[in-house]
């Protein structure tokens, strides 16, 4: 092999691998990405049943209902609206009424959000950032200046 051929081989292989990676990334971007919506966004953006997304907000106080077979039904709310969520399984330790929560899943035809994942957090004072942003945008969120600073890793 001449120098030129060697160089071309190297460039060719690098190009191939990069093209493969680029193709994979672009394809995956279309297919595997999940949007985040607050309950009010669902109507505003007309989210269709069956589309996977993350729903975030506060767990409405008094809405948590435990049924048979570990089914839990609760409402996730922001300032403007609330959405019924149904989840089967074991909830994370820090799931509480009045606290921030993020659930992943899709709407069923009747408009109930069927979650297959409910996100847990390590920290009891932690508010998921998306939820905090939504509430702040809707003028509901106050930074808790006087509250004691909580644990950071």
């Amino acid at each position: 092999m001449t120098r030129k051929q060697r160089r071309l081989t190297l460039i060719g292989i690098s190009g191939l691998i990069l093209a493969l990676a680029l193709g994979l990334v672009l394809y995956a971007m279309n297919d595997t990405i999940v949007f985040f919506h607050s309950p009010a966004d669902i109507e505003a953006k007309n989210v269709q049943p069956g589309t996977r997304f993350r729903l975030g907000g506060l767990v409405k106080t008094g809405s948590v209902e435990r049924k048979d077979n570990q089914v839990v039904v609760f409402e996730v709310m922001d300032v403007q609206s609330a959405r019924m969520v149904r989840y089967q399984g074991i909830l994370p330790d820090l799931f509480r009424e009045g606290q921030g929560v993020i659930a992943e899943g899709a709407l069923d035809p009747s408009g109930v959000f069927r979650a297959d994942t409910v996100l847990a957090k390590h920290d009891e004072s932690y508010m998921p950032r998306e939820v905090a942003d939504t509430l702040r945008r809707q003028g509901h969120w106050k930074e808790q200046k006087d509250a004691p600073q909580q644990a950071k890793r």
Partner: protein
Amino acid sequence: MIVEAGHFALALALGLSLVQFAVPLWGARVNDPVLMNVAPTTALAVFGCVGFAFLALLIAYVSSDFSVLNVVENSHSTKPLIYKISGVWGNHEGSMLLWILILTAFGAVVALARRSVPIKLKANTLAVQAAVTIAFLLFILITSNPFKRVVPMPSEGQDLNPLLQDPGLAIHPPLLYVGYVGFSITFAFACAALIDGRIDAVWARIVRPWTLAAWAFLTLGIAMGSYWAYYELGWGGWWFWDPVENASLMPWLAGTALVHSTVVMEKRNALKVWTILLSILTFSLSLLGTFLVRSGVLTSVHSFAVDPARGIFILGILIAFIGGSFALFAWRAPLLQQGGLFAPVSREGALVLNNLFLTTACATVFIGTLYPLALEALTGEKISVGAPFFNFTFLPLIVPLLLILPFGQTLAWKRGNLLGTTQRLFVAMGLSLAITLALIALTFGGPVLAPLGVGLGIFLILGSLNEVVTRSWSKGSSWAVVWRKATALPRSTWGTVLAHAGIGLTVIGIAAQAWSVESIGALKPGGVLKAGSYQVRLESVKPRAAFNYREDVASLNVSHDGRELGTLETMKRLYVTRGMPTTEAGIMTIGLSQIYASLGEVQADGSIGLRLYYKPLVLLIWIGSLIMAFGGALSLSDRRLRVGAPSRAQTFQTLPAPAE
């Protein structure tokens, strides 16, 4: 008093670091050995100061000095001693102090070790190291002072986040930080080479142990963190493709590429500019990791409440160092003498392929981790990029790399022979293919990828052990001869073989998870839940109290095909001081597999929720990682790296590129 002294020591360290930065850099420029020799002395002094500061904080924690805000927020007088100690780095300020401690410790080791490091290279390296130290000392002194007092002094602390009260988390951050920060040395050496405008195989030989050490620690740190998440979070997952995890995976991937490219540089004096770039990139990714974890810009299952002002400071450090080093690279790299090109089919050709795959895979992780941030900044749209994205993009890039790995390891330097290599791997390929086919037949109807993955893992193990066999065994030789030859192989060879076999084990462990069984149910005492061929019976649920938490303990009786295997306990805990609940998974290890149980809430009818998993061969994931790290350590202890470079190191001349 000691607290103020600790604070003062940090300020002193800052002043000394400024000297360590400016004087040797100038000395190297004007070629003054006296000025250059300031570097090792100040590096040791800075380490001494930071060490004292760390000790001061440690004493405040151990003696539960609640006049210090940091101790109040993260400690409690009834906490066990080990968590009082680990509490030092179980919070933002303390963990940054640990970061700097490790950084300066590495600087001190460079200052002390390896007299064969040319004085100019050493001076420049320590100066760059000092620049990093200055930035982080400023960060800690301005935004995150761990020595802040609180008036009036509370009588009791707020306790450490219960999830962090765990032996795994006591050692995970130090291991991870040694890995992250270890790459700062490689970075400093790379910048020094750029400043000097010279680089050769000797440079690679000096840098390689540092890279290996950092890589081995990072491997341990990631494995430890993954195992901690597995048993502590109670969902039975061991890797979530979470931003915080990705933040440690990216430097690991780049570091793995670096470990391999320095071999090419050392043996063949090629890939020089690439290696420099990779050194800079790896440490940049380490800094990015620190930023992502510390700033809280990403939503993560591992994130803790954070202060955005600090994020901006770290972002500033990030931009300064990444931008600065890349500018230095763009300016000086053309001065470096290029190495020669080489045949595509050769060991070095295979290592280039390794680097291409690893850096590309790293890039996809990078895109997946940062794309949500970029999109939100540009359009305000919030998205989440989760496991499906990474599985889809990362795996197709890593699997081919793993497939060609044994070939690369078997190929000769300079001019390889693909046919001969394939013949030498014939046994390994045949055996792993046979096992894969047998597994497919046995588990017909189950997940298809699992047997393929296990087969790949076996191929990796056999393929890497093949090197030992071919180098020590020949027809008719006695076992004693084989043994003598095998043990006489260089430690770096054994290190390579073990590290690669370790990946094989990890791959088998990961692939076998496709066969894991999950079941969820609600049980009353006496009730039975099945996971695969295993079943558990709930014996009892009893309350129990320890000095800093209360818990409900469920005793589960595990049996397999009617044979009793024993009892495992799983707990739902409530840490009293913070009123925070945690789930303590109950794990029973059966060989390399595990039965994993975690409790849910008490249901309306009085039964208790239970999540049960059977996870076959799951321990291999971490055993493989441990073996990988051990392989790195073994390579590190190779005589070649300890003895140092021959005499040409003193003159530090550029070697001519090898003839084609």
